[in-house]
């Protein structure tokens, strides 16, 4: 009989447990870009850090996004980021960087970089830090300060490679670096190691891989490495038989790679 109160207590909590499991969260609504529905669902959800985090994300999505909403979201993210080390804390730190980078009326790249660096310092291997890494690279590669030379900007971006742990982040970072080298009209050969690394990592989506194969071949040909260039041209032809560039690549192969047109 002494077990009866415990049993009753357990039975009494069952509805609560069930409700917690079934509690609506706003994530599905946010995935459908229904921010108002998401806010409503988060309000009805079990209180907690993830619910607060979700509410802040929904505030950034509810149109029209007002400065007050952004400020409220920023407040929530700050509290969450400074009070834990879990997924929610890391996600909140990431969003603090994003807000400074892309949500403020006047972007604050220095603050965005500070948040990303803190995330990398505290949780370097995590998904959130690795996602922040390439965003930080953009801030390094395209600084507001006109005194930073293109070569210095690229060098600063390249220093971040040491912190890229996940293959996805490595691949993304190499591509961003190669593109910056082309953007600044630095010698194309400087982009080659990044393109080769990105290709080797094997994480490129199909259209990007087509571009990268052509880029590698072209830059190799430009540098006089006809044998390697031929290898990448040939891979491109084999993998992308329907690509519009096929004729051009075949012409280059037929003309003797490296000799130009």
């Amino acid at each position, binding site marked *: 009989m002494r077990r009866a109160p415990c049993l009753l207590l357990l039975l009494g909590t069952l509805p609560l447990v069930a409700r917690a499991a079934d509690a609506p*969260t*706003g*994530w*599905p609504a*946010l*995935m*459908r*870009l229904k*921010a108002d529905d*998401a806010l409503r669902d988060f309000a009805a959800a079990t209180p907690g850090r*993830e619910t607060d*985090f*979700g509410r802040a*994300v*929904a505030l*950034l*999505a509810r149109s029209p*996004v007002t400065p007050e909403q952004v400020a409220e979201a920023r407040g929530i993210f700050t509290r969450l980021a400074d009070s834990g080390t879990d997924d929610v804390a890391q*996600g909140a730190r990431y*969003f603090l960087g*994003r807000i400074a980078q*892309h*949500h403020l009326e006047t972007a604050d790249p220095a603050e965005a970089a500070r948040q990303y660096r803190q995330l990398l310092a505290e949780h370097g291997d995590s*998904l959130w830090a690795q*996602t922040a890494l*390439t*965003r930080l690279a*953009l801030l390094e*590669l*395209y600084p507001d300060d006109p005194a930073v030379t293109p070569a210095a900007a690229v060098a600063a971006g390249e220093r971040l490679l040491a912190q890229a742990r*996940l293959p*996805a982040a490595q691949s*993304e970072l190499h*591509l*961003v670096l190669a*593109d910056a080298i*082309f*953007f600044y*009209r630095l010698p*194309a050969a400087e982009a080659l190691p990044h393109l080769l690394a990105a290709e080797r990592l094997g994480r490129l*989506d199909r*259209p990007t891989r*087509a*571009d990268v194969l*052509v*880029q590698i071949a*072209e*830059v190799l040909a*430009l540098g006089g490495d006809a044998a390697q260039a031929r290898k990448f041209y040939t891979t491109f032809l084999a993998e*992308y038989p*329907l*690509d*519009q*560039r096929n*004729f*051009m*690549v075949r*012409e280059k192969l037929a003309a003797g790679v490296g000799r130009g*047109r």
Partner: protein
Amino acid sequence: MKITRQMVGFILMGAAYLAATYTIVRRSAQEARTDRVTIRFSQWQLEGTVRKAFDAIIARYEQLNPRVHVVHLAVPDTVYLPWIQTQMVGGTGPDVAEYVWIWPDIARRFQPLDEDIMQPNPYNRGTPLEGVAWRDTNIDGFSNDDSYIKSLGHYYGITVTSHVNRIVYNRELLRRITGSDAPPRTYRDFVALCARIQAYAKAHDLNLVPVGASQDTFPFLTYMVMGTMGAGLSERLDVRHRLQIYQNQLASQYLRGEWSFETPELQAGLEVLEHLGTVATPGFVQRRRHSALADFVSQRTAMVVMPSWEASSLPLICTFDIGAFPFPYPLQDDPVYGALARGPYGEGPRISVMGLYLNRTTPHRAEAIDFLQFLTSVEGSRIFTTVSNWQPATVGVKPSGFAAQFTQVTEGWAWAATYIGLTIDAEPFLRTRFSTLWNANGGLKAFQREVKAGLAARIRDDLRREVVSGIHNVQREDNIAVAAYFAAPPAARPAKLELVTMPNEVKVYQFGRLLTAPDPTHP
């Protein structure tokens, strides 16, 4: 009983009411059938042959799938965009809708098809495409702008056709004037032919000019001529070494002062266009396409600039034999422009168009995908080209006899650069400047002056808008990615956040940097 005019009116009104009631009841009954699923499919190609082609495909599909009923909604292009937007916002959008990649809210209204297109198309069983991924059965592998939305990094549109622009000509008239109905092979042949037609018209006092064009069709020529004759320049501008150049990249390179309309290749292109203006219908910049068509059908022009989608109806309305040829660009052997030529030329990038998108909220996803698979299967594509006279977009499907004259030449140098369709505002600015090129009081130098005075400002405005839309994309996709991450059970959370693609975020910075840099085009 005397039937009065008033009574006739009432009778007609009653008959109309009964007909309308019958139609509504019949359609309601059809939709109320519980033994089959109804999916709705909207598009705006109202050319008779195309509508018939879709109807024929639907009839065959329903024969194969009696459980599915497909409603074909053909909506005029003039109202299509507001119509589809209203339908989608109101939650009554069709399951499958024709849409264009530059239109708004693709991520919000439609769903990606990344996984679907990697599966084989079951309707290709027993054909050479059996077992081939759906993506690889399309002539461009769904790499076109309507299929693969670069800014979102996902495949959305299933494309069904392709188009080229051609010079369509009156074979009988040409035979009468020149003794042969063979089209010109070289640019110099074309120039000579035009001169001969003009001389013939003068000698016989005929209201006849060599080439018909209109404000709707001359842009095709300008795109083709500038893009093709600019091939050498495109090669130099390909600083990313991709063997292709995106239009907004060209625009940003204009702002850097890396090219202008005084660059030799483009100057040559403008000279070729200037000549075309002298052999085209006077005042064509002000005329609409039906005027150009009427002139050609009435034999007031020997040739007419025509996109393949419009030409499909020519066999129905012309009383004479017609032929079609691609514009004969000056090649390396041309005495004037040979040094600038980089032929042989292909007819632009091989891209398929007419993207059909899947409604994000369709309750009949499986049926809609199945219908799209049939539509783009070997059988569906054959029906499409045979009935519509449009090009098929499925690998290995031969175009109909008439459409074969409009098959794109893909064996040749082709850069995805037109130098006219740069950015949203820059394009109409350039298009309207061509009236200066072809004006007796204007000409090439005047055109170049006007472009130099106004183009950079338009590009700047457009890139500024691209930066803003890029930031909006980043914000939206951040939210979706994080929501998808937390929506998954902790043990099944993705190893990567599917944020906006990096090129989309990079452009925010690269364009932003160009916009704050000094303007080399106006030192």
